[in-house]
Protein backbone atom coordinates (compact mmCIF):
# COMPACT_ATOMS: atom_id res chain seq x y z
CA UNK A 1 0.00 0.00 0.00
CA UNK A 2 2.83 2.37 0.87
CA UNK A 3 4.45 1.59 -2.45
CA UNK A 4 1.13 2.22 -4.22
CA UNK A 5 0.78 5.63 -2.59
CA UNK A 6 4.27 6.48 -3.80
CA UNK A 7 3.42 5.33 -7.33
CA UNK A 8 0.22 7.35 -7.57
CA UNK A 9 1.85 10.80 -8.08
CA UNK A 10 4.04 9.21 -10.78
CA UNK A 11 0.97 7.92 -12.61
CA UNK A 12 -0.77 11.28 -12.32
CA UNK A 13 2.32 13.00 -13.72
CA UNK A 14 1.70 11.01 -16.92
CA UNK A 15 -1.63 12.81 -17.31
CA UNK A 16 -0.15 16.24 -17.92
CA UNK A 17 2.23 17.13 -20.69
CA UNK A 18 2.40 17.84 -24.37
CA UNK A 19 0.19 14.95 -25.45
CA UNK A 20 -2.59 14.47 -22.94
CA UNK A 21 -6.34 14.93 -23.08
CA UNK A 22 -6.26 15.48 -19.31
CA UNK A 23 -4.26 18.69 -19.72
CA UNK A 24 -6.61 20.81 -21.89
CA UNK A 25 -5.23 23.98 -23.46
CA UNK A 26 -8.20 25.13 -25.51
CA UNK A 27 -12.00 25.38 -25.28
CA UNK A 28 -12.67 22.21 -27.33
CA UNK A 29 -10.30 20.18 -25.21
CA UNK A 30 -11.86 21.75 -22.11
CA UNK A 31 -15.33 20.59 -23.19
CA UNK A 32 -14.08 17.06 -23.81
CA UNK A 33 -12.17 17.11 -20.53
CA UNK A 34 -15.37 18.05 -18.67
CA UNK A 35 -17.24 15.28 -20.45
CA UNK A 36 -14.51 12.79 -19.55
CA UNK A 37 -14.73 13.57 -15.82
CA UNK A 38 -18.55 13.69 -15.88
CA UNK A 39 -18.67 10.18 -17.36
CA UNK A 40 -15.90 8.83 -15.16
CA UNK A 41 -17.40 10.13 -11.91
CA UNK A 42 -21.00 9.16 -12.80
CA UNK A 43 -19.97 5.65 -13.81
CA UNK A 44 -17.81 5.25 -10.69
CA UNK A 45 -20.68 6.28 -8.40
CA UNK A 46 -23.07 3.90 -10.19
CA UNK A 47 -20.58 1.06 -10.00
CA UNK A 48 -20.06 1.62 -6.27
CA UNK A 49 -23.85 1.73 -5.68
CA UNK A 50 -24.38 -1.50 -7.64
CA UNK A 51 -21.59 -3.20 -5.69
CA UNK A 52 -23.11 -2.07 -2.37
CA UNK A 53 -26.54 -3.38 -3.33
CA UNK A 54 -25.01 -6.66 -4.50
CA UNK A 55 -23.16 -7.00 -1.20
CA UNK A 56 -26.36 -6.31 0.74
CA UNK A 57 -28.22 -8.91 -1.30
CA UNK A 58 -25.50 -11.50 -0.63
CA UNK A 59 -25.45 -10.88 3.12
CA UNK A 60 -29.25 -10.70 3.52
CA UNK A 61 -30.88 -13.43 5.63
CA UNK A 62 -33.93 -15.14 4.12
CA UNK A 63 -37.19 -13.74 5.60
CA UNK A 64 -38.44 -15.78 8.57
CA UNK A 65 -42.23 -15.39 8.20
CA UNK A 66 -44.65 -15.13 5.29
CA UNK A 67 -45.54 -11.54 6.17
CA UNK A 68 -41.87 -10.55 6.22
CA UNK A 69 -41.37 -12.19 2.80
CA UNK A 70 -44.21 -10.17 1.30
CA UNK A 71 -42.81 -6.94 2.76
CA UNK A 72 -39.36 -7.79 1.33
CA UNK A 73 -40.95 -8.48 -2.08
CA UNK A 74 -42.62 -5.04 -2.10
CA UNK A 75 -39.36 -3.38 -1.05
CA UNK A 76 -37.34 -5.03 -3.81
CA UNK A 77 -40.01 -4.02 -6.37
CA UNK A 78 -39.56 -0.41 -5.24
CA UNK A 79 -35.76 -0.72 -5.44
CA UNK A 80 -35.86 -2.19 -8.97
CA UNK A 81 -38.38 0.46 -10.10
CA UNK A 82 -36.19 3.21 -8.68
CA UNK A 83 -33.11 1.76 -10.36
CA UNK A 84 -34.84 1.62 -13.77
CA UNK A 85 -35.97 5.24 -13.42
CA UNK A 86 -32.46 6.29 -12.36
CA UNK A 87 -30.95 4.46 -15.34
CA UNK A 88 -33.27 6.25 -17.77
CA UNK A 89 -32.48 9.62 -16.16
CA UNK A 90 -28.71 9.04 -16.11
CA UNK A 91 -28.55 7.80 -19.72
CA UNK A 92 -30.68 10.74 -20.88
CA UNK A 93 -28.56 13.20 -18.90
CA UNK A 94 -25.28 11.85 -20.22
CA UNK A 95 -26.64 11.86 -23.78
CA UNK A 96 -27.63 15.49 -23.40
CA UNK A 97 -24.22 16.42 -21.92
CA UNK A 98 -22.49 14.59 -24.78
CA UNK A 99 -24.70 16.42 -27.31
CA UNK A 100 -23.87 19.80 -25.76
CA UNK A 101 -20.11 19.13 -25.80
CA UNK A 102 -20.17 17.83 -29.38
CA UNK A 103 -22.19 20.84 -30.52
CA UNK A 104 -19.76 23.21 -28.85
CA UNK A 105 -16.69 21.69 -30.53
CA UNK A 106 -18.20 21.29 -34.00
CA UNK A 107 -19.35 24.89 -34.46
CA UNK A 108 -17.88 26.48 -37.58
CA UNK A 109 -16.00 29.78 -37.32
CA UNK A 110 -16.07 31.86 -40.49
CA UNK A 111 -13.01 33.95 -39.59
CA UNK A 112 -10.88 30.90 -38.76
CA UNK A 113 -7.35 30.46 -40.09
CA UNK A 114 -7.48 27.63 -42.64
CA UNK A 115 -4.76 24.98 -42.72
CA UNK A 116 -4.87 22.01 -45.07
CA UNK A 117 -3.44 18.79 -43.75
CA UNK A 118 -2.86 15.74 -45.93
CA UNK A 119 -1.82 12.41 -44.47
CA UNK A 120 0.70 10.19 -46.19
CA UNK A 121 2.30 6.93 -45.07
CA UNK A 122 3.89 8.14 -42.73
CA UNK A 123 4.09 11.92 -42.63
CA UNK A 124 1.91 15.03 -42.89
CA UNK A 125 1.80 17.59 -45.66
CA UNK A 126 0.78 21.03 -44.41
CA UNK A 127 -0.56 23.84 -46.62
CA UNK A 128 -1.48 27.37 -45.53
CA UNK A 129 -3.66 28.50 -48.45
CA UNK A 130 -3.80 32.16 -49.45
CA UNK A 131 -5.69 33.91 -52.25
CA UNK A 132 -2.35 34.91 -53.73
CA UNK A 133 -0.55 31.76 -54.89
CA UNK A 134 2.88 33.13 -53.99
CA UNK A 135 1.71 33.60 -50.42
CA UNK A 136 0.55 29.98 -50.14
CA UNK A 137 2.86 28.10 -47.84
CA UNK A 138 3.73 24.43 -48.13
CA UNK A 139 5.54 22.64 -45.31
CA UNK A 140 5.43 19.33 -43.44
CA UNK A 141 5.14 17.62 -40.08
CA UNK A 142 4.80 20.79 -37.99
CA UNK A 143 2.01 23.34 -37.89
CA UNK A 144 2.16 26.74 -36.26
CA UNK A 145 -1.04 28.43 -35.11
CA UNK A 146 -1.73 31.81 -33.51
CA UNK A 147 -3.15 31.69 -29.99
CA UNK A 148 -6.65 32.97 -29.33
CA UNK A 149 -7.79 32.61 -32.97
CA UNK A 150 -9.90 29.68 -34.22
CA UNK A 151 -8.13 27.39 -36.66
CA UNK A 152 -9.91 25.22 -39.20
CA UNK A 153 -7.91 22.18 -40.24
CA UNK A 154 -9.10 20.68 -43.52
CA UNK A 155 -8.18 17.03 -43.47
CA UNK A 156 -7.43 14.76 -46.42
CA UNK A 157 -5.42 11.60 -47.02
CA UNK A 158 -3.34 10.51 -49.96
CA UNK A 159 -3.15 6.75 -49.49
CA UNK A 160 -4.92 5.12 -46.53
CA UNK A 161 -7.08 6.36 -43.66
CA UNK A 162 -5.21 8.40 -41.06
CA UNK A 163 -6.56 10.37 -38.13
CA UNK A 164 -5.52 13.72 -36.68
CA UNK A 165 -5.45 14.00 -32.91
CA UNK A 166 -3.94 16.73 -30.71
CA UNK A 167 -5.24 15.64 -27.29
CA UNK A 168 -4.34 18.94 -25.60
CA UNK A 169 -6.35 20.99 -28.07
CA UNK A 170 -9.24 18.94 -29.43
CA UNK A 171 -10.66 15.52 -30.23
CA UNK A 172 -9.85 13.15 -33.09
CA UNK A 173 -10.95 13.49 -36.68
CA UNK A 174 -10.30 10.95 -39.42
CA UNK A 175 -8.49 11.74 -42.66
CA UNK A 176 -10.10 9.64 -45.37
CA UNK A 177 -8.93 9.33 -49.00
CA UNK A 178 -11.45 10.92 -51.34
CA UNK A 179 -13.35 12.72 -48.60
CA UNK A 180 -12.75 16.06 -46.92
CA UNK A 181 -13.23 16.43 -43.18
CA UNK A 182 -12.54 19.47 -41.10
CA UNK A 183 -11.94 20.34 -37.49
CA UNK A 184 -12.14 23.74 -35.76
CA UNK A 185 -10.28 24.46 -32.56
CA UNK A 186 -8.53 27.26 -30.69
CA UNK A 187 -5.36 27.19 -28.65
CA UNK A 188 -5.51 29.53 -25.70
CA UNK A 189 -2.01 29.15 -24.32
CA UNK A 190 1.26 29.21 -26.24
CA UNK A 191 3.13 25.94 -26.27
CA UNK A 192 4.19 22.94 -28.33
CA UNK A 193 1.68 20.13 -28.46
CA UNK A 194 2.22 16.70 -29.92
CA UNK A 195 -0.32 15.21 -32.28
CA UNK A 196 -0.43 11.57 -33.24
CA UNK A 197 -1.99 9.64 -36.08
CA UNK A 198 -4.89 7.93 -34.34
CA UNK A 199 -5.97 5.45 -37.01
CA UNK A 200 -3.81 2.42 -37.71
CA UNK A 201 -2.23 3.20 -41.07
CA UNK A 202 0.49 0.61 -41.53
CA UNK A 203 3.87 -0.45 -40.30
CA UNK A 204 5.03 2.94 -39.00
CA UNK A 205 1.69 4.19 -37.67
CA UNK A 206 3.22 4.73 -34.22
CA UNK A 207 5.92 6.91 -35.76
CA UNK A 208 3.54 9.31 -37.45
CA UNK A 209 3.52 12.35 -35.21
CA UNK A 210 2.94 16.03 -35.82
CA UNK A 211 3.86 19.01 -33.67
CA UNK A 212 1.48 21.89 -33.18
CA UNK A 213 3.24 25.08 -32.10
CA UNK A 214 0.83 27.64 -30.69
CA UNK A 215 2.38 31.09 -30.42
CA UNK A 216 1.21 34.72 -30.06
CA UNK A 217 -0.14 36.21 -33.34
CA UNK A 218 2.95 38.40 -33.94
CA UNK A 219 5.31 35.42 -33.55
CA UNK A 220 3.07 33.40 -35.87
CA UNK A 221 3.24 36.11 -38.57
CA UNK A 222 7.03 36.25 -38.21
CA UNK A 223 7.20 32.46 -38.62
CA UNK A 224 4.93 32.58 -41.68
CA UNK A 225 7.01 35.28 -43.36
CA UNK A 226 10.23 33.40 -42.65
CA UNK A 227 8.79 30.16 -44.04
CA UNK A 228 7.63 31.87 -47.24
CA UNK A 229 11.20 32.92 -48.05
CA UNK A 230 13.34 30.79 -50.32
CA UNK A 231 15.91 28.47 -48.82
CA UNK A 232 18.93 30.23 -47.25
CA UNK A 233 22.01 30.27 -49.45
CA UNK A 234 24.98 28.05 -48.57
CA UNK A 235 27.58 29.91 -46.55
CA UNK A 236 30.72 27.87 -47.11
CA UNK A 237 32.22 25.42 -49.58
CA UNK A 238 30.91 22.35 -47.76
CA UNK A 239 27.33 23.63 -47.78
CA UNK A 240 27.73 24.62 -51.44
CA UNK A 241 28.80 21.04 -52.18
CA UNK A 242 25.84 19.78 -50.14
CA UNK A 243 23.45 21.72 -52.31
CA UNK A 244 25.10 20.37 -55.45
CA UNK A 245 24.72 16.77 -54.17
CA UNK A 246 21.09 17.36 -53.19
CA UNK A 247 20.29 18.78 -56.63
CA UNK A 248 22.13 16.15 -58.64
CA UNK A 249 21.27 12.98 -56.70
CA UNK A 250 17.98 11.20 -56.15
CA UNK A 251 17.03 13.64 -53.31
CA UNK A 252 15.76 16.16 -55.89
CA UNK A 253 13.46 13.59 -57.50
CA UNK A 254 11.18 13.58 -54.45
CA UNK A 255 11.94 16.68 -52.37
CA UNK A 256 11.58 20.40 -52.96
CA UNK A 257 14.00 23.01 -51.68
CA UNK A 258 12.59 26.30 -52.97
CA UNK A 259 15.25 28.42 -54.59
CA UNK A 260 17.23 25.43 -55.86
CA UNK A 261 16.75 22.96 -58.67
CA UNK A 262 15.29 20.38 -56.28
CA UNK A 263 11.56 20.44 -57.09
CA UNK A 264 10.17 16.96 -56.46
CA UNK A 265 6.73 16.76 -54.87
CA UNK A 266 6.65 13.18 -53.56
CA UNK A 267 8.27 13.70 -50.16
CA UNK A 268 8.16 16.47 -47.53
CA UNK A 269 9.21 19.99 -48.54
CA UNK A 270 12.72 20.59 -47.20
CA UNK A 271 13.01 24.35 -47.79
CA UNK A 272 13.16 25.08 -44.06
CA UNK A 273 13.63 21.57 -42.71
CA UNK A 274 16.09 22.61 -39.99
CA UNK A 275 13.60 25.13 -38.58
CA UNK A 276 11.28 22.27 -37.62
CA UNK A 277 11.71 20.67 -34.22
CA UNK A 278 11.69 17.07 -35.45
CA UNK A 279 12.42 15.17 -38.64
CA UNK A 280 10.74 12.10 -40.12
CA UNK A 281 7.31 12.91 -38.59
CA UNK A 282 8.38 13.25 -34.97
CA UNK A 283 10.98 10.48 -34.94
CA UNK A 284 14.23 12.33 -34.31
CA UNK A 285 15.01 15.81 -32.97
CA UNK A 286 16.46 18.02 -35.71
CA UNK A 287 20.22 17.98 -35.33
CA UNK A 288 22.95 17.62 -37.92
CA UNK A 289 23.62 14.14 -36.59
CA UNK A 290 20.07 12.90 -36.94
CA UNK A 291 19.72 14.48 -40.40
CA UNK A 292 22.85 12.64 -41.50
CA UNK A 293 21.70 9.38 -39.88
CA UNK A 294 18.34 9.66 -41.62
CA UNK A 295 19.86 10.28 -45.06
CA UNK A 296 22.43 7.54 -44.54
CA UNK A 297 20.01 4.79 -43.58
CA UNK A 298 16.32 5.71 -43.44
CA UNK A 299 15.18 2.07 -43.52
CA UNK A 300 16.91 1.20 -40.26
CA UNK A 301 15.35 4.16 -38.46
CA UNK A 302 11.81 3.79 -39.86
CA UNK A 303 11.55 0.44 -41.71
CA UNK A 304 9.13 0.39 -44.63
CA UNK A 305 8.93 4.15 -45.20
CA UNK A 306 9.18 5.42 -48.76
CA UNK A 307 12.55 7.12 -48.47
CA UNK A 308 15.14 4.89 -50.14
CA UNK A 309 18.73 4.55 -49.07
CA UNK A 310 20.56 6.68 -51.63
CA UNK A 311 24.14 5.64 -52.10
CA UNK A 312 26.36 8.58 -51.09
CA UNK A 313 30.07 8.75 -50.29
CA UNK A 314 31.09 9.80 -46.79
CA UNK A 315 32.08 13.26 -48.05
CA UNK A 316 28.80 13.70 -49.88
CA UNK A 317 26.88 12.71 -46.75
CA UNK A 318 28.85 15.23 -44.66
CA UNK A 319 28.14 17.95 -47.21
CA UNK A 320 24.43 17.15 -47.45
CA UNK A 321 24.03 17.16 -43.68
CA UNK A 322 25.83 20.52 -43.47
CA UNK A 323 23.53 21.99 -46.12
CA UNK A 324 20.36 20.56 -44.56
CA UNK A 325 21.36 22.07 -41.19
CA UNK A 326 21.66 25.46 -42.95
CA UNK A 327 18.02 25.21 -44.14
CA UNK A 328 16.53 27.04 -41.20
Amino acid at each position, binding site marked *: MKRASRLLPLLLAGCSGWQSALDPRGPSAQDLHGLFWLFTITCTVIWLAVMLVLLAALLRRPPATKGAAEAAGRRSARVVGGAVAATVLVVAGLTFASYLATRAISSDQPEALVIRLRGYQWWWEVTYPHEQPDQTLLTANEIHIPTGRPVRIELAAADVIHSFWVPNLTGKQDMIPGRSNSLVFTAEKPGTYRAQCAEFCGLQHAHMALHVVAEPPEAFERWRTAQLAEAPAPEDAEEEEGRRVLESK*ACAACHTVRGTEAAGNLGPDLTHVASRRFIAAGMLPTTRGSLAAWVADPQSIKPGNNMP*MVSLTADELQAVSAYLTRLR
Partner: protein
Amino acid sequence: MKPWHAALLSLLLLAGCKRETRQARLDPAVAEAMDSVATLPIGINGRPPPVLLAMGEPYRSNAYQLSQGKRLYAWFNCQGCHTDGGGGSAPALMDGWWRYGPDAVSIFLSIRDGRPNGMPAFRERLTTEQIWQLTGYLQSLGATSSTAATPGRNDSMQTRPGENRVPSMSRLPSPHEGGP
Protein backbone atom coordinates in the same frame (compact mmCIF):
# COMPACT_ATOMS: atom_id res chain seq x y z
CA MET B 1 -12.08 -37.83 -37.92
CA LYS B 2 -9.95 -38.72 -34.96
CA PRO B 3 -8.83 -35.89 -32.62
CA TRP B 4 -5.19 -36.29 -33.60
CA HIS B 5 -6.19 -35.98 -37.27
CA ALA B 6 -7.83 -32.66 -36.45
CA ALA B 7 -4.76 -31.55 -34.51
CA LEU B 8 -2.49 -32.44 -37.43
CA LEU B 9 -4.77 -30.62 -39.86
CA SER B 10 -4.78 -27.45 -37.76
CA LEU B 11 -0.97 -27.59 -37.55
CA LEU B 12 -0.88 -27.79 -41.35
CA LEU B 13 -3.29 -24.85 -41.58
CA LEU B 14 -1.10 -22.82 -39.21
CA ALA B 15 1.80 -23.29 -41.59
CA GLY B 16 -0.25 -21.33 -44.14
CA CYS B 17 -0.20 -18.27 -41.87
CA LYS B 18 3.42 -17.52 -42.63
CA ARG B 19 3.58 -14.07 -44.06
CA GLU B 20 5.52 -13.05 -47.10
CA THR B 21 8.72 -11.35 -45.99
CA ARG B 22 9.03 -7.67 -46.73
CA GLN B 23 12.58 -6.59 -47.06
CA ALA B 24 12.58 -2.84 -46.52
CA ARG B 25 16.30 -2.36 -46.03
CA LEU B 26 18.80 -3.61 -48.54
CA ASP B 27 22.38 -4.11 -47.49
CA PRO B 28 24.45 -1.37 -49.22
CA ALA B 29 26.89 -3.95 -50.60
CA VAL B 30 24.00 -5.92 -52.14
CA ALA B 31 22.55 -2.72 -53.59
CA GLU B 32 25.88 -1.98 -55.20
CA ALA B 33 26.21 -5.50 -56.58
CA MET B 34 22.74 -5.21 -58.11
CA ASP B 35 23.97 -2.37 -60.27
CA SER B 36 26.60 -4.43 -62.07
CA VAL B 37 24.89 -6.03 -65.04
CA ALA B 38 26.99 -7.66 -67.74
CA THR B 39 25.53 -6.59 -71.04
CA LEU B 40 26.17 -6.78 -74.74
CA PRO B 41 27.95 -3.73 -76.18
CA ILE B 42 24.73 -2.62 -77.90
CA GLY B 43 23.08 -2.17 -74.48
CA ILE B 44 20.48 -4.89 -74.72
CA ASN B 45 20.28 -8.31 -73.17
CA GLY B 46 22.80 -9.62 -70.72
CA ARG B 47 23.37 -11.50 -67.55
CA PRO B 48 21.43 -10.35 -64.52
CA PRO B 49 23.52 -9.65 -61.43
CA PRO B 50 24.23 -12.99 -59.69
CA VAL B 51 23.11 -11.47 -56.40
CA LEU B 52 19.53 -11.29 -57.72
CA LEU B 53 19.50 -15.04 -58.30
CA ALA B 54 21.04 -15.60 -54.88
CA MET B 55 18.22 -13.55 -53.31
CA GLY B 56 15.62 -15.63 -55.14
CA GLU B 57 14.59 -12.94 -57.65
CA PRO B 58 12.41 -10.97 -55.19
CA TYR B 59 11.58 -8.27 -57.72
CA ARG B 60 9.74 -10.80 -59.87
CA SER B 61 8.09 -12.90 -57.21
CA ASN B 62 7.50 -10.81 -54.08
CA ALA B 63 4.18 -8.97 -53.88
CA TYR B 64 5.64 -6.19 -51.73
CA GLN B 65 8.40 -5.48 -54.23
CA LEU B 66 5.90 -5.55 -57.11
CA SER B 67 3.70 -3.06 -55.25
CA GLN B 68 6.67 -0.78 -54.72
CA GLY B 69 7.30 -0.95 -58.47
CA LYS B 70 3.70 -0.04 -59.15
CA ARG B 71 3.93 2.92 -56.78
CA LEU B 72 7.11 4.15 -58.48
CA TYR B 73 5.43 3.77 -61.90
CA ALA B 74 2.84 6.31 -60.77
CA TRP B 75 5.21 8.50 -58.76
CA PHE B 76 7.76 8.94 -61.52
CA ASN B 77 5.09 9.61 -64.12
CA CYS B 78 5.78 6.62 -66.35
CA GLN B 79 2.14 6.88 -67.46
CA GLY B 80 2.89 10.37 -68.79
CA CYS B 81 4.27 8.63 -71.89
CA HIS B 82 3.43 4.93 -71.56
CA THR B 83 -0.09 5.48 -70.06
CA ASP B 84 -1.27 2.52 -68.02
CA GLY B 85 0.78 0.18 -70.13
CA GLY B 86 -1.16 0.66 -73.34
CA GLY B 87 1.33 3.09 -74.84
CA GLY B 88 0.91 6.71 -75.85
CA SER B 89 3.76 8.87 -77.00
CA ALA B 90 5.97 5.96 -75.92
CA PRO B 91 5.72 2.22 -76.65
CA ALA B 92 3.12 0.04 -74.99
CA LEU B 93 4.39 -2.10 -72.12
CA MET B 94 1.75 -4.80 -72.00
CA ASP B 95 1.44 -6.06 -75.56
CA GLY B 96 4.32 -8.49 -75.24
CA TRP B 97 6.52 -6.67 -77.77
CA TRP B 98 9.67 -5.11 -76.42
CA ARG B 99 11.90 -2.91 -78.59
CA TYR B 100 14.96 -3.75 -76.54
CA GLY B 101 14.08 -7.26 -75.46
CA PRO B 102 11.76 -8.73 -72.82
CA ASP B 103 14.46 -9.79 -70.35
CA ALA B 104 14.96 -8.07 -67.02
CA VAL B 105 18.42 -6.72 -67.87
CA SER B 106 17.22 -4.91 -71.00
CA ILE B 107 14.33 -3.32 -69.13
CA PHE B 108 16.66 -2.38 -66.25
CA LEU B 109 19.09 -0.74 -68.68
CA SER B 110 16.27 1.14 -70.47
CA ILE B 111 15.24 2.73 -67.16
CA ARG B 112 18.74 3.29 -65.78
CA ASP B 113 20.50 4.59 -68.88
CA GLY B 114 17.59 5.75 -71.04
CA ARG B 115 17.02 4.96 -74.71
CA PRO B 116 17.18 7.02 -77.91
CA ASN B 117 14.12 9.04 -78.98
CA GLY B 118 12.97 10.26 -75.63
CA MET B 119 13.34 7.69 -72.83
CA PRO B 120 15.22 9.58 -70.10
CA ALA B 121 17.88 8.04 -67.89
CA PHE B 122 16.77 7.61 -64.26
CA ARG B 123 20.22 6.76 -62.92
CA GLU B 124 20.39 9.84 -60.70
CA ARG B 125 16.69 9.92 -59.88
CA LEU B 126 16.09 6.38 -58.62
CA THR B 127 18.18 4.00 -56.57
CA THR B 128 19.29 0.70 -58.11
CA GLU B 129 16.80 -1.15 -55.92
CA GLN B 130 13.97 1.07 -57.11
CA ILE B 131 14.93 0.45 -60.76
CA TRP B 132 14.76 -3.29 -60.12
CA GLN B 133 11.37 -2.87 -58.44
CA LEU B 134 10.10 -1.02 -61.52
CA THR B 135 11.63 -3.65 -63.79
CA GLY B 136 9.81 -6.43 -61.93
CA TYR B 137 6.54 -4.52 -62.14
CA LEU B 138 6.96 -3.87 -65.89
CA GLN B 139 7.65 -7.55 -66.46
CA SER B 140 4.41 -8.37 -64.65
CA LEU B 141 2.58 -5.90 -66.93
CA GLY B 142 3.71 -7.69 -70.06
CA ALA B 143 3.49 -11.19 -68.62
CA THR B 144 1.61 -13.78 -70.63
CA SER B 145 1.35 -16.32 -67.84
CA SER B 146 0.08 -15.67 -64.37
CA THR B 147 2.22 -15.73 -61.24
CA ALA B 148 1.38 -16.19 -57.58
CA ALA B 149 2.43 -12.66 -56.62
CA THR B 150 0.75 -9.47 -57.83
CA PRO B 151 0.90 -5.86 -56.69
CA GLY B 152 -1.98 -4.21 -54.86
CA ARG B 153 -5.10 -3.21 -56.75
CA ASN B 154 -5.75 0.29 -58.05
CA ASP B 155 -7.85 2.61 -55.92
CA SER B 156 -9.35 4.16 -59.04
CA MET B 157 -10.93 2.49 -62.05
CA GLN B 158 -8.73 0.17 -64.06
CA THR B 159 -8.11 1.07 -67.66
CA ARG B 160 -6.88 -2.44 -68.38
CA PRO B 161 -7.17 -5.86 -66.75
CA GLY B 162 -5.69 -5.79 -63.24
CA GLU B 163 -2.29 -7.30 -62.63
CA ASN B 164 -4.01 -10.10 -60.76
CA ARG B 165 -5.83 -10.97 -64.00
CA VAL B 166 -2.64 -11.68 -65.94
CA PRO B 167 -2.41 -12.86 -68.68
CA SER B 168 -4.10 -9.78 -70.07
CA MET B 169 -4.13 -11.48 -73.47
CA SER B 170 -4.62 -15.20 -73.98
CA ARG B 171 -2.48 -15.22 -77.09
CA LEU B 172 -0.49 -12.61 -78.97
CA PRO B 173 -1.38 -12.13 -82.63
CA SER B 174 1.68 -12.71 -84.75
CA PRO B 175 2.71 -10.12 -87.39
CA HIS B 176 1.17 -12.38 -90.08
CA GLU B 177 -2.16 -12.13 -88.33
CA GLY B 178 -2.12 -8.36 -88.15
CA GLY B 179 -0.24 -8.09 -84.88
CA PRO B 180 2.42 -5.48 -84.36
